[in-house]
């Protein structure tokens, strides 16, 4: 996945709304989503995938010179309410970046009401600089 510009993110119309030091917010309009879940919400599997994407975009901006982004290790999502807002945001925050592993959390919210739809934790491998 490269910096939010991947093919699938473009197909889904996902936009990077904000990107700062160790924090990134992605957003998606529900009308663009065809994979639907309970009560016509965004499917939970897609929510988990976008949680993962948000953290990786966040982490890519925090890599040191020569450092690489490795595989996602674990994704844990607590689904709190159905993601049924017109626009849903995925706000990722880096909690800890070590030499070989980074851990972050992601909040999924209805952009209109601010309702928390899901809370997630993601870990991702890092590839240290050669030498």
């Amino acid at each position, binding site marked *: *996945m490269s910096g939010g510009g*991947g*093919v*699938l*993110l473009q*197909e889904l119309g996902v936009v990077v709304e904000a990107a700062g030091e160790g924090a990134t917010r992605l957003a998606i309009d529900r009308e663009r989503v*065809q*994979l639907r*879940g*309970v009560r016509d919400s965004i*499917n*939970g*599997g*897609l929510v*988990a*995938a976008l949680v*993962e*994407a948000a953290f990786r975009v966040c982490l890519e901006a925090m890599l040191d010179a020569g450092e690489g982004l490795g*595989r*996602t*290790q*674990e*994704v*844990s*999502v*607590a*689904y709190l309410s*159905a993601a049924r807002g017109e626009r849903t945001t995925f706000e990722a925050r880096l909690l800890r970046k070590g030499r070989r592993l980074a851990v972050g959390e992601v909040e999924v919210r209805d952009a209109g009401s601010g309702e928390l739809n899901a809370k997630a934790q993601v870990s991702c491998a890092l590839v240290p600089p050669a030498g």
Partner: protein
Amino acid sequence: MPVPEREAWLARFDTAPARRLGVAPESVERGFAAFAIAVPYGDERDDDPLFFATALHYAADIAALSAVIARCELEQPNGTASVHLAELAAPRGPVRVWSRVVHWGEYAALLEIAAEDASGALVARGLTGYSLRPPASMP
């Protein structure tokens, strides 16, 4: 709600957006369901790891949902409550994602999830909680 009739179940999950992810329904039985992910894609999707990641998460979610539907008697599925997925390895060939009910409670079910590639290697392993509506709460 018994095990869904196979043709109806295939029709529900064999959709255009699922096919774009390479996800196709495979089998369903009481408390169990399996989906296939046809990777490698052989086109530009192989260059975007989010395609397989999304396929994996989506297949895990609908496998769990299908397993719950195929286990419900009087209860109703209410939605996925949680998922914990460890992504263990990159797939080497087509992947089979399955989910099985390991505990059936009054208000929630616990299911295991696994994804295995054509060589039998584990690609991902996880647990998901699924919220249930008991018969007494229904009108």
